[in-house]
């Protein structure tokens, strides 16, 4: 499949007063055209930083290194900021988590939607205005003409997020990156927004990267899932494989900690004990070792790399090493 985005060995660190924080420690991703990929992980695992690194939206104290970041055939690592700017908002759109703080309170919605249109598509004011109205209709905002003159604080949370999506989609991007777009919204609104995004994806064949900590969101939208922990990818694969043929203890833990509404049995919620690793001094071995029920001696100081479980399904766990499989026959992840 032709890939719209290929990230090879991305490493991002932050220089802080306390030392160097290694937020992303070697990530490789590929997103196909029209594919929607979910990136899952708990707070601090590096999923947002990964996206911000690709988009080059990090502060000056960030050090971004990668073998290559190829978008639509061009390696972004070799390009200057001007080129990045021509991509941002144009070929790559981004939707952020909190629509209230992500919109400038002092400018009208119309102004903010028309901005990328004027920059990237060289539209006149009238052309931009017409397109803005169409975009608002597209995202399901009624009476778009009058809404253009309103300010962000005059919109509800769900509507604001729709506006953010309109802005991100305004220049027909090939890739839409959504960073926890529904986390700050009510559950019912969540469903609407996800539905909107799926519809847009189908209509325009836009690739979507959906960052979230909520597996429910992923199951609705994505065909492929990437699970991150401690700055690394621990498992990735098609959605059914991740859910039904789980091959990493962390993923298993995530799935187990979701309460099942429809179950008849009285099951205890099983949280994952412990807390995330310290990225100032990242552990030498598997980042999940200290919290893992299946941890082995080799896990403590040796970093497992991603190994094939089946077609397109990979996991980074020592349990999948040929020797481990031999020695631990009978022990396997319980799956779901």
């Amino acid at each position: 499949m032709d890939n719209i985005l290929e990230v090879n060995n991305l490493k991002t660190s932050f220089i802080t007063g306390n030392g160097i924080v290694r937020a992303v420690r070697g990530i490789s991703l590929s997103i196909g055209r029209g594919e929607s990929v979910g990136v899952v992980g708990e707070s601090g695992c590096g999923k947002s930083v990964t996206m911000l690194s690709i988009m080059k939206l990090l502060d000056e104290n960030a050090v971004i290194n990668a073998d290559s970041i190829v978008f639509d055939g061009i390696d972004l690592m070799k390009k200057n900021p001007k080129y990045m700017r021509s991509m941002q908002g144009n070929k790559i759109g981004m939707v952020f988590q909190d629509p209230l703080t992500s919109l400038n309170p002092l400018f009208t919605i119309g102004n903010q939607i028309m901005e990328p249109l004027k920059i990237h598509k060289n539209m006149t004011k009238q052309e931009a205005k017409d397109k803005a109205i169409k975009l608002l209709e597209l995202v399901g905002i009624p009476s778009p003409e009058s809404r253009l003159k309103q300010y962000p604080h005059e919109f509800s949370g769900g509507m604001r997020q729709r506006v953010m999506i309109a802005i991100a989609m305004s220049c027909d991007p090939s890739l839409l990156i959504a960073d926890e777009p529904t986390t700050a919204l009510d559950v019912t609104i969540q469903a609407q927004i996800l539905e909107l995004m799926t519809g847009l994806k189908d209509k325009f064949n836009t690739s979507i990267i959906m960052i979230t900590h909520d597996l429910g969101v992923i199951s609705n939208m994505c065909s492929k899932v990437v699970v991150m922990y401690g700055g690394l990818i621990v498992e990735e694969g098609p959605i059914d494989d991740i859910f039904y043929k789980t091959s990493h203890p962390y993923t298993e833990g995530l799935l187990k900690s979701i309460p099942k509404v429809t179950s008849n049995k009285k099951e205890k919620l099983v949280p994952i004990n412990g807390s995330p690793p310290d990225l100032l001094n990242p552990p030498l071995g598997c980042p999940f070792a200290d919290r893992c029920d299946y941890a082995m001696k080799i896990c403590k100081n040796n970093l497992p790399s991603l190994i094939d479980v089946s077609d397109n399904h990979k996991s980074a766990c020592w349990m999948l090493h040929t020797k481990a499989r031999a020695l631990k026959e009978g022990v396997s992840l319980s799956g779901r």
Partner: protein
Amino acid sequence: MAKYIIKRLLAGLISLWVLITITFFLMHSIPGGPFSPAEERKIPPEVLAKIEASYGLDKPLYIQYVNYLNNLLHGDLGISFKDRDTLVNDLIERGFPVSARVGIVAVIISLCIGVPLGIISAIYKTKWIDRASMIFATIGISIPGFVITVLMMFFFCVKFKIFPTFGLSSPLHYVLPVAGLSFYPIAYITRLLRSSMLETMRQDYIRTARSKGVKEIMVIAKHALRNSLMPVVTYLGPLIAGLLTGGFVVERLFSIPGIGREFVSSVGDRDYSVTLGITVFYGAFIIIANLCVDILYVIIDPRVKVEE
């Protein structure tokens, strides 16, 4: 919008009334009365009584107060105690334009230097230009204006004889007074805008703007700046009022015949009606300046109306 303005106007009028009342009663409670220096001139008691009667000082206090308020409503600020031929209104009419000329230039200079300096310091945070302007700004707000004016006067007028020290007869005459008045405001505005910009640049909507591919200079000039201006606008009100009505020290040192100088001398001379009159004028001026600032708020930040 109209409701907002009316509310603000009303609040301002109440403040003005309080100021007038306090001033009036304080004036008349001061021991010694307005004519004690006259005792040195040995005015006979009957003449003194006649003079006092002509000023209405023999009437009960509350009647004087009502009369005074009445006169105020007609725009009459009374007569100078020191010189019976002078109307306070005339004093103000003569002095205010002089002070205002210097003041307006000072306001413009303060904004033209302070605002860009604040922005540049915020953008180039911790680089040498930021450190330099922050040290300068801290010095500017720490060392009193009158100290800086005196020092400048000494160096540039005495030692190097570049600038004149008396009056305002040429543009050159304006340089030092304006500089003396502007030092503190420039420093203050720089610091204010810098910290406001830094706060704004941390906001999410700045990241959104960048993610849309907006050029960095536009991110700063369009998105960041407008959101950072509020504290500076707030400062504008008192700044304009203060500068326009005369830097007391600057007018004294450079012998500028503005109302600031009149005010200070009237305090020393115990010329109550002048002191009172200028106080009222000053208070009214500030109320109007603040009202204009409030209107500016609403224009800049559409959320302000809603919060009222």
